């Protein structure tokens, strides 16, 4: 219901924009008589018309805004000459408000759809065309998108959406809303079946935002893309807040504050080239294995730098990215949400050519503790990997969950549970390396042996315990005088990997420099892992609620 209300609000917002877009020049004469032209010529003319979308003037305006056209984007995203277009002849069916006029009909309407290849692998693509009615979503527009999504599901291939749309086609009314819902339903049905990626390359407002929100990954282009439920004008009139478009829903907001978007890129070209690179990490569907590419990095490469990486003082920070970069193939790590909840690091990399998902606590930021945002960030990523057969490698250095009223009121309990749930539920190969701290409940959560970790290692610097020495001693020896001695005893007992190793909770204590070699071998062994969860209609992941900073 909230979504529908939002759509209504966005109609208000976008009314001006869409109206102005068809007050613009009728780019070229489109009236012709059937009798005077052969069918062949008509086909050719329509095809040509489809290629220029809203006409040269609007293309120039699009370029002037620093944006590429829908077709230019598709051309950059896909392998040369691989794009196969569908529905170039589809036109909108609206006959109100003068929309039936020939000069208001554009072959293909406001979206380009089809399939093609990225580095030889199949992908379905839709690319909204801002030059046609501001990329607004008509019934026909939605129908085109649904068609490629249906086909992607049939053959098992990812769907990439390039979003650049002013919102609903207001002239079409409920047909446009129905179109959104049709897409949402398909987003949900495809979820976990084929990877879905959204790249926001212009406005995306109102109900339209829910499609990207339902996809697996949402990327944005800095300075030229916006995502919000309602724009600054409505915000002003409802809550009296002054906020710019950029502050409200720009790339920076969504990659650093809201966590709605997973990464932002400098401009259209940068974004599309990066998307090609990102695509190479993904399996094509849930029936396909994690892809393996040719790898030049020896799988048995030792990483001597790791032996001295963890500082001797356990309160000192280090950069988990140093660990990740040096272990994965060719230091190539595609980080997801690098600017959000930085106390956890997630992203894709390869081990001996095979795509893996990496999760790591980041001691450099907030000591690597788990809080609401990092739990949700980690959980979503782990669930993607599990859905698409991507093995998960977890680097653990976690002092615990972040205490405090802000966290408790925000619901750290149920948000933390999401990460726990995700790791527990996952049946893909799971390899865990405890680099230093694994304290308290956070130890359990971080892909522990108890949650069906396949291979769990500890570095010699590992400390698996209920809590740090000081806190523990204060509880165990409450009121006693010789706290320092007790602390030393606790450290001696627990600040090392033995308590976990003697119980078999870690499989081995490994020399850090050999970690890469061990992981590569384990992945080879685990490639044939088969594990299923009990039959259920679907599980009941502890979803729920808004995040921490809610008003009281």
């Amino acid at each position: 219901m909230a979504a529908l209300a939002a759509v209504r609000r966005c109609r208000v917002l976008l009314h001006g924009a869409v109206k102005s877009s068809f007050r613009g020049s009728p780019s070229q004469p489109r009236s012709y008589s059937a009798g005077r032209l052969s069918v062949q010529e008509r086909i050719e003319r329509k095809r040509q018309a489809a290629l220029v979308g809203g006409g040269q003037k609007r293309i120039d305006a699009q370029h002037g805004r620093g944006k590429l056209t829908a077709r230019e984007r598709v051309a950059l995203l896909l392998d040369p000459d691989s794009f196969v277009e569908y529905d170039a002849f589809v036109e909108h069916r609206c006959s109100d408000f003068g929309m039936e006029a020939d000069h208001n009909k554009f072959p293909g309407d406001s979206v380009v759809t089809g399939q093609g290849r990225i580095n030889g692998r199949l992908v379905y693509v839709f690319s909204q065309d801002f030059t046609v009615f501001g990329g607004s979503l008509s019934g026909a527009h939605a129908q085109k998108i649904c068609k490629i999504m249906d086909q992607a599901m049939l053959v098992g291939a990812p769907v990439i959406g390039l979003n650049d749309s002013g919102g609903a086609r207001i002239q079409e009314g409920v047909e446009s809303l129905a179109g959104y819902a049709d897409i949402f339903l398909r987003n949900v049905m495809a979820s976990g079946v084929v990877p879905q990626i959204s790249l926001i390359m212009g406005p995306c407002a109102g109900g339209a935002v829910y499609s990207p929100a339902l996809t697996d990954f949402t990327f944005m282009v800095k300075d030229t893309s916006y995502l919000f439920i309602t724009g600054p004008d409505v915000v002003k009139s409802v809550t009296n807040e002054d906020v710019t478009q950029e502050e409200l829903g720009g790339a920076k907001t969504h990659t650093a504050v809201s966590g709605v978007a997973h990464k932002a890129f400098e401009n259209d070209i940068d974004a599309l080239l990066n998307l090609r690179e990102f695509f190479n990490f993904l399996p094509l569907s849930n029936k396909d294995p994690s892809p393996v590419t040719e790898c030049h990095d020896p799988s048995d490469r030792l990483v001597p730098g790791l032996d001295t990486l963890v500082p001797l003082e356990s309160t000192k920070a280090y950069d988990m990215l140093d660990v990740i970069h040096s272990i994965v193939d060719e230091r190539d790590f595609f980080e997801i949400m690098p600017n959000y909840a930085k106390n956890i690091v997630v992203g894709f990399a390869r081990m001996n050519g095979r795509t893996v998902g990496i999760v790591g606590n980041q001691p450099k930021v907030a000591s690597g503790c788990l809080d609401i945002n990092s739990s949700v960030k980690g959980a979503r990523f782990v669930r993607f990997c599990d859905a698409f057969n991507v093995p998960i490698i977890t680097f653990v250095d976690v002092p615990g969950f972040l205490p405090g009223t802000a966290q408790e009121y925000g619901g750290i309990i149920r948000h933390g549970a999401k990460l726990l749930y995700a790791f527990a539920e996952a049946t893909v190969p799971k390899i865990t390396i405890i680099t230093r701290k694994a304290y308290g409940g956070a130890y359990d959560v971080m892909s522990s042996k108890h949650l069906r970790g396949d291979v769990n290692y500890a570095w010699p610097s590992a400390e698996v315990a209920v809590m740090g020495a000081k806190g523990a001693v204060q509880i165990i020896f409450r009121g006693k005088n010789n706290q320092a001695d007790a602390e030393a005893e606790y450290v001696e007992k627990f600040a090392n990997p033995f308590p976990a190793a003697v119980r078999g909770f870690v499989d081995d204590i490994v020399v850090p420099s050999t970690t890469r070699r061990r992981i590569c071998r384990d992945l080879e062994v685990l490639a044939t892992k088969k594990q299923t969860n009990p039959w259920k209609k679907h599980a009941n992941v502890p979803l729920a609620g808004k995040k921490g900073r809610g008003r009281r």
Partner: protein
Amino acid sequence: NGSKWDLNLGLLVHRRVCYLLGSCHVVTTVFPSALFSFLSVQTFDKILIANRGEIACRVMKTCKKMGIKTVAVHSDVDANAVHVKMADEAVCVGPAPTSKSYLNMDAIMNAIRQTGAQAVHPGYGFLSENKEFAKRLAAEGVSFIGPDTHAIQAMGDKIESKLIAKAAKVNTIPGFDGVVKDADEAVRIANEIGYPVMIKASAGGGGKGMRIAWNDEETREGFRFSSQEAASSFGDDRLLIEKFIDNPRHIEIQVLADKHGNALWLNERECSIQRRNQKVVEEAPSTFLDPETRRAMGEQAVSLAKAVNYSSAGTVEFLVDSRKNFYFLEMNTRLQVEHPITECITGLDLVQQMIRIAKGFPLQHTQAEIPINGWAIESRVYAEDPYKSFGLPSIGRLSQYQEPLNLHNVRVDSGIEEGSDISIYYDPMISKLVTYGATRAEALKKMEDALDNYVIRGVTHNIPLLREIIVHPRFISGDISTKFLPEVYPEGFKGHQLTATGRKELLATAASLFVAAQLRAQKFLGDLRVSNTQQERRSWELCVELEKGVHMLGVSRSGATYTVEIDGDKLEVSSDWNLASPLLTVTLNGIHRTLQCLSRNAAGEISLQYLGTTFKLRVLSKLAAALSVHMPEKVPEDTSSILRSPMPGTVVAVSVKAGDTVAEGQEICVIEAMKMQNSMTAAKTAKVRSVHCKPGETVGEGDLLVELE
């Protein structure tokens, strides 16, 4: 209970020399007497090395060869350092600051007692020329591997050392310091000294008000100006008239003396390439000295050593003018940083000699047995930014590190390894890179290769500068002086300037690398779903940006060889195209080159190290390049001058105050949150404008901590 040289080692004489070069590839003639050094010579059981880094490792290597146990001392941050791992025992002598650890005599004396070390090698720097330390060792009956306190003291004092040198008939810079009556007297003094002379007011510091006179006329003029200035500016009539040394070279003589009154000179080292009085590139021998001058310098150095009853290895530094007049500068009573080049050309292991001498053995060689075999060059590889004043220190973690030891005739003295931190506490030297050849040209060529093959990631380093110096025509011709760097780069060092050919080589390599990566991206193993209908591409049209120039290139492939067309020229580029290796070895129209790929991303940006300098390129397909005209220009936001707290916490320490200059990556303050200390570092090298936090204070996320200028 003395230890013995390993006999097996001793019998294979040339292997010792090979060791001197780090790897077994040099065969130098070694005189027969050297053989004796390997036969049962008793020295010490255990030596403590009161130093860190490369020199500690260097000393330990020889100790190991001699079968002597080693003790390392270290600060707490160095607990994982290479020299600690290399030693048989290690003792922590205090916290990171040198005054509390490596200069902490009490702690080091304790370490000696605790480990029972019989002798101490001080390396260079730290306590190496500290007579107090030498005295305390002597008091406890521990041998100091270096000269005795008398020599340290005598040579440590600038004025005293000059007087001793004069008495020992060593050339000192002739001069007069006092009241000069009139211009005629000034001319008389100038003629006594010999032209050119330098005239200035005694009270004026440095080069202030300095005038150079090449004849009587100019002397009179200089006298007039300087005496006026002396009276008016300083109220002190005294003038200094001194021999002016034009285009001075810094050439030093290595000496070796025993406790029995014998002394040798082991030829010279040319150390003229300097910045801010710190040596950068050294070589042995010097291109400038003829045998007579060499002998004269060597004999004077030896006579100075004898004058102070010197024992151990020492170095006598001279300034040499363009007419080969040489003048004593100072004597260093320790092992020099640049000693390896002397070892390369003489075949002697100076550390071994020092240990023997300290035990009281006489010298093994006569002067006639000291050869000059071949040529050796040393480059000091520093963690510093050569684009700023020829080198401002940088710090960081060596995320990747690979020494060029795969090459023959290369020796690398270092005390770090992959993963090591270059910290603010110590000298930012990464290593000493030494190459050797039968001729200077051979050694220089080897140095080019070695620098190209040296992989250093994670810190800024001075390889760009080193690589340029050794190929500069003036350096190659031997036309150098201590002013070389400011003269050759008056505007500051700007990196390698590409020639037309070089530009093409670089463009062709980048384009080929781009294509190789593109092709590899299509290689999915065992994937049946990769298109069979798509034709494998054979040719590409690319657009490459380099230094603001845009170039259209055609690339076609046949196997691992790419043919690149640039402006009508064709370049053939072949390589194994290993995309994981930091080194990129290519053959460009038949010429072998080693480049390094520093980074490469999806957006087509490629950083290549070519001839030492890093060049940033961008490779785009023709389509992407054509469309990039529509992309908006972006002005990068500068957030590097503001440091905000990334989290709520307590300020534990603030390491800077307003007005301080901080280096990029240097710690500014420490914030404790969740009982973890987080070090906040400077994003750029700058002066501190203001500090907004103090220790003990609680800060919130996003609070302003420090502003830089």
